């Protein structure tokens, strides 16, 4: 699916240019996970012509590694820096997805990023309609999941 490849390409571009990290996508995961354990999730919501969410999920070791790369300093705990970094990752991907879904970009609005982390939590995303994609990337520090859900709105 074209949008799957675009999402994978956008993720690789972010990791290459901002983190100097080479990552390669794996085969698509059919069913997006609902519950997470010892994970950090950064999210940005979409509204307007399309509503939906872009989320970046990483287990603690990978989240710390990504944030360490971002900040060029050792990060050894899940703290505000990690949450902020994951919000920014989701924000950059959401900007790319917005450009994919809308030629003008003006008809899609993005929320400010938010992040969560925890030993165990669930994300309640309406999966009854619309398009759902998960692009997994395997790394030495764990599996990165890029999640996209979007649904075209009536009149759009």
């Amino acid at each position, binding site marked *: 699916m074209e949008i799957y490849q675009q999402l994978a390409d956008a993720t690789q571009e972010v990791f290459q240019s*901002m983190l100097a990290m080479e990552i390669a996508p794996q085969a698509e995961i059919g069913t997006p996970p609902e519950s997470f354990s010892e994970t950090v999730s950064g999210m940005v919501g979409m509204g307007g012509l399309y509503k939906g969410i872009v989320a970046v999920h990483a287990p603690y070791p990978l989240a710390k590694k990504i944030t360490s790369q971002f900040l060029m300093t050792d990060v050894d705990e899940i703290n505000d820096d990690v949450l902020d970094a994951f919000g920014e990752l989701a924000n950059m991907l959401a*900007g*790319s997805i*917005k450009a994919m879904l809308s030629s*003008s*970009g003006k008809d899609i609005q993005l929320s*400010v990023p938010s992040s969560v982390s925890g030993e165990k939590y669930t994300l309640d995303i309406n999966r009854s309609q619309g398009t759902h994609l998960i692009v997994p990337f395997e790394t030495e520090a764990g599996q990165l999941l890029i999640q996209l859900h979007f649904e075209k709105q009536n009149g759009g």
Partner: protein
Amino acid sequence: MGKQILIIDDSNTMRKIIGRSLRQAGLEYDKVLEAGDGAEALKILESEKPDVILSDINMPNMDGIEFLRQKKANDKIKNIPVFMITTESAADVINEAINLGAKGSIKKPFTPEQIQNTLGGI
């Protein structure tokens, strides 16, 4: 007085990355000022006069567009060059920023080379 830059972004991580990218691009500033949104930036500009400003667009409280609007209306600061550094891809939004006085924009994600190409002449 040495060269100063003001970086406006609600993400502390992004402000640090931009600062590092400036150094990697060979752009040295004696003082790097930071603000978390447009309102905080306007407060800083009451007492500081940076040579250039890099601003995000999508921020809580006061976004980059409103910051440009208020800066343009203030004779003391309206001539400080501003470049947008943003995930925003909408041509209409970028054009609105340009019409409000922004000199250009850098798309996130970015490389130090892109920063150098945009800011090198300032």
